[in-house]
């Protein structure tokens, strides 16, 4: 005996499968996968290798080594686990509990409901965690640089919208705007809310880095002194092992009029040398014509060694990509001798508070 079946109806079962389901609408709703199991329920179907349906109604598992409980769930990914109602998983090693979710990402872990994973060009993003958020989006098809938000986390709230590597989103929400009759609350038809699929209000945090060797000294035409310029461009995963740039631009994805307040904590260290750090506040805006501007930034606090005091931070909009924020840390120094060299390493944690700014 190489199969265990309690009901002889239906198609033939897979080798070494266990099928204790009695009722089905079509003959293929059986354990046709090898080592697969259906322990109870009706209209369940398992074609994957070593996969199982614990119980429930009209679940379908085609991925290998995957498990599902609940109703109307579809699992195509391998090593996936799914509980809830009307969900679909295509990613591998993913685990979801909730309702009406769909996921194409590997290593996703999520609780929540009424979620929509608009994976688009970012469907290969990995290690995503959704903790008790509702109506979430992971990346978009039209994100210009197709940056995958690997390792992103959303915690609570509604419609968090991570797009950066390692981004952590907290407190996401969609606010109602009183007196605006033109934008309905999503799905409700009630005037006074905001449109769906935009990240209206959220707090998030990303980490930028930069690293490079000192540049070649030059002769200052005004003073005749030998000088060198140290400019560090901070990017997502920027400047690894002395390779300048090489990371991903910090690109703002904003389909609507939106403002951001950025609090930036940054540090610059000369390896085996001195160090300095500071905190800046930056105001970013996007108008109704789609233009992104750095409206203002100020240096809030500064600490560090005097030899590093001439380092300064600047924030501009990149000319390469009009939606990218360019953060640079730079100084011009007089080297102690012409052969002076070293490596600078910098990191900055950027905390965003983002707000929809329509004034209709």
């Amino acid at each position, binding site marked *: *005996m190489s199969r265990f079946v309690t009901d002889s109806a239906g198609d033939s079962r897979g080798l070494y499968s266990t099928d204790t389901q009695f009722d089905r609408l079509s003959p293929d709703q059986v354990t046709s996968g090898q080592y697969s*199991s259906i322990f109870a329920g009706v209209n369940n179907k398992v074609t994957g290798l070593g996969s199982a349906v614990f119980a429930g109604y009209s679940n379908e598992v085609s991925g290998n080594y995957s*498990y599902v409980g609940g109703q109307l769930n579809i699992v195509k990914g391998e090593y996936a686990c799914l509980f809830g109602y009307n969900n679909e998983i295509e990613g591998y090693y993913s685990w979801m509990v909730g309702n009406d979710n769909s996921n194409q990402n590997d*290593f996703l872990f999520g609780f929540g409901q009424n979620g929509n994973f608009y994976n688009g060009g970012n469907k290969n993003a990995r*290690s995503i965690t959704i903790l008790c958020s509702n109506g979430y989006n992971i990346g978009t098809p039209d994100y210009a640089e197709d940056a995958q938000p690997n390792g992103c*986390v959303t915690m609570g709230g509604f419609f968090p919208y991570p797009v950066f590597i390692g981004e952590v989103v907290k407190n996401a929400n969609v606010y109602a705007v009183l007196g605006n009759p033109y934008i309905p609350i999503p799905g409700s038809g009630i005037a006074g809310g905001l449109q769906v699929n935009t990240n209206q209000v959220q707090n998030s945090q990303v980490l930028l*880095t930069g690293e490079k060797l000192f540049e070649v000294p030059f002769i200052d035409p005004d003073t005749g002194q030998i000088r060198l310029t140290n400019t560090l461009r901070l990017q997502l995963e920027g400047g690894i092992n002395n390779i300048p740039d090489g990371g991903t631009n910090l690109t703002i994805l904003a389909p609507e009029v939106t403002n951001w307040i950025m609090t930036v904590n940054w*540090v610059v260290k000369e390896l085996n040398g001195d160090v300095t750090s500071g905190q800046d506040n930056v105001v970013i805006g996007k108008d109704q014509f789609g233009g992104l501007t750095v409206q203002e930034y100020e240096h809030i*606090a500064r600490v560090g060694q005097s030899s590093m005091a001439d380092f300064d931070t600047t924030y501009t909009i990149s000319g390469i990509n009009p939606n990218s924020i360019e953060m640079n840390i730079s100084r011009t120094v007089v080297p102690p001798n012409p052969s002076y060299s070293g490596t600078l390493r910098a990191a900055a944690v950027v905390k965003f508070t983002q707000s929809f700014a329509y004034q209709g």
Partner: protein
Amino acid sequence: MSKFSVQNGVSGSIKYGDPRGNASTDMQFVRTAADQVASGYASLIGGGAQNKASNFYSAVVGGFGNVSSGVSALTAGAGNVASGESSVALGGGNLSSGYGAFTLGLDNQATADGSVAVGNGNVAQGVGSGIIGSAASTTLSTGVGALVLGGSAGVGYLPGQVVTNARGGQYSGATPEIGTLQVSEIILTGQIEVPPGQAASSIPLTLDGGAPGPTNQVGMLGSDKTWQIDIDYMVIGLNGKVMGGKDIVIFDKISNIVNYSDKASVSVIGDAVFKTQFTTNYISLGSPVDFAMTIIPNGVVILDPNFPVTLRAAAKLTIVELKNN
């Protein structure tokens, strides 16, 4: 019949396996060793191949090569081991050995009691600690209740530390090195009693609010680190006074010694008089205490001439942690 097995004709051979536990259910057909059966009392193997459920109430839902050896342990997937009591291991190649430990994903380990490891290649060693949605991250045994969220090669090594945005492979090439680049948050607390008519003394802030010692103060993991710290603190007099402030602090540690630190006070708010009576101080006491925070009275501060006053302080530290060699 006190047990149900799909193969119990000749117990003891590999084909049929060892005797099943009383009240067990074993629906597995394929094994390469005789003990790959539901041998525990009231245990379950739902299907699959080469699985083993050996302890009381343990279960292997299905899959391949799983071992549920803890009391009430559960596994599903391939190559998982749940050896801790009431532990769960789901996915591939996971180990849940702590009491109530939970692993999910690929090649994770949750070895401490109540620990959680979700993602890929994570190891949770702190009691009640968690790693969620990360890769190659760790909580150390000192990181009780620590949480690593997202990123890769993050490390939670202080009690209650919450780590985000970790990128341990940034400066180490193909082999990630934990804690080389990450952001984290911790809370420090402290409290003193000021007798009536006497001057307030300094308030040391520690990880557990207790008297400062080698185990409840802050050490930086590794010998070469730079910390940029955003500190939001508050001091409460339980007589109704309150003040708060924000500092920016930098600590630079080279060859196991903090050789440089600096502080900038950004703002102070609160009761008009109370907020002028205290300031902050940050020093290194030498290994293992790289960072010590103290609330210090500005001169002689007598809070109440007739009644004792309790002073309570708390600080949230947001730390950018950067490897500096």
